[in-house]
């Protein structure tokens, strides 16, 4: 076994286990064992498990973003200090000071690249499982011969194999051989859907969930560039990757979109437009207590007993100075 294979082995095993577990679940529920849809749903199940496992990291990130409100004045001070200074040296000094502030106050809003790095091997593992299955080769663990054959020959809409890609069909088309148009259509539609979900996710953040301070920062500009760069990446990978792998990515993207929507709706960044919208929504329902509801409750504990009304002059007597 080569080096990469050795590193990926445990992950491949885990990916296979999850795939096979979901596959047998859906089969027991009465779905066709060899159908493409059953295998696609198994991939969706895999995504759900992986993304659910990443939720704690996401929650942590949100929490430190909330804490950033406390250091906003200090952050503003740093930004004002370097306002209008566009040279590399000042910008580096600014990032340095900002990072130092995050550390001192424990408000680092960045998640590190670990969540991304963790997903990449899973992605590769799925890729290689599909690649093996394409040749109806058994996997390293739970995916045995029969299941690998079933996965390898599973098709969507009658004749779009999950292990096939746009590029392989394109090569056949150029060579003038028989090619599978359904595979190309599905791949193209998925690229469009992925781009759309990415756009919606980013637009949600940019248009609703950013405080004015963030919008003024250089980080914002970079995010804008990403917004237009990612569709190109999707188009490229949508051409090269097998449909099964694309289903993993698409589902993951849709998860991100929904997660982002829920977070923006229920725990928006203070000071952003989404936060104002939430306050209005709550005020309409008569539920608006304060921006930090639970704090208020602590300060004013509910009285169990109703206070007796007191007549004006009696009240004066009670509180007035003793004679």
């Amino acid at each position: 076994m080569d080096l990469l294979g050795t590193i990926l082995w445990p992950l491949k095993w885990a990916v296979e286990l999850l795939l096979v577990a979901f596959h047998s679940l859906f089969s027991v529920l009465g779905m066709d064992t060899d159908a493409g849809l059953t295998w696609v749903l198994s991939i969706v199940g895999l995504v759900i498990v992986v993304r659910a496992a990443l939720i704690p990291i996401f929650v942590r990130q949100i929490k430190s973003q909330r804490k950033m409100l406390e250091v906003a004045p200090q952050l503003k001070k740093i930004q004002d200090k370097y306002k209008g200074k566009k040279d590399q040296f000042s910008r580096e000094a600014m990032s340095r000071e900002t990072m130092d502030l995050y550390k001192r106050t424990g408000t680092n809003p960045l998640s590190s690249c670990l969540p991304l790095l963790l997903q990449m091997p899973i992605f590769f593992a799925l890729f290689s499982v599909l690649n093996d299955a394409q040749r109806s080769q058994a996997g390293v663990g739970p995916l045995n011969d029969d299941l690998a054959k079933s996965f390898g020959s599973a098709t969507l809409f009658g004749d779009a194999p999950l292990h096939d890609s746009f590029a392989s069909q394109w090569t056949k088309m150029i060579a003038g051989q028989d090619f599978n148009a359904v595979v190309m259509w599905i791949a193209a539609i998925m690229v469009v859907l992925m781009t759309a979900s990415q756009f919606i996710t980013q637009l949600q953040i940019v248009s609703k969930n950013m405080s004015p301070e963030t919008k003024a920062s250089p980080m914002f500009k970079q995010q804008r560039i990403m917004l237009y760069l990612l569709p190109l990446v999707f188009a490229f990978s949508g051409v090269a990757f097998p449909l099964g792998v694309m289903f993993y990515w698409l589902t993951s993207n849709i998860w991100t979109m929904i997660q982002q929507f829920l977070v923006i709706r229920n725990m928006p960044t203070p000071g952003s437009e989404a936060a104002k919208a939430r306050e209005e929504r709550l005020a309409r329902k008569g539920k608006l207590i304060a921006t930090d509801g639970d704090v208020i409750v602590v300060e004013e504990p509910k009285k169990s007993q109703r206070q007796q009304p007191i007549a004006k002059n009696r009240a004066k007597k009670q509180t007035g100075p003793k004679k």
Partner: protein
Amino acid sequence: MNRFLTTLILLPRNAGVLVLRAYRALISPLYGDVCRYYPSCSAYALGAVQEYGLIVGSARAGLRLGRCHPWAEGGIDDVPPKRNRRYTVTSFGFVIATSHGKG
């Protein structure tokens, strides 16, 4: 030292610099700003390779990647500078022999 020999010795780390520059130009922007440290992990890797060469620099970069996770405190974490610098870094990032004459 023989100029040719120095260039030869510096070849691996300059190859590393080229790869890291390409990574930072093409792949880093896709992630956006995610690193909990300053400089970011890839900038740290670049600095470490320039300072310590391909093998030691890569090892240092690997340790840094290990330090960078969602539970890390983050903050400023520079490449520790070598006591005596023998080489010069160009604006692109290539490491070259310090030109003679200045001592």
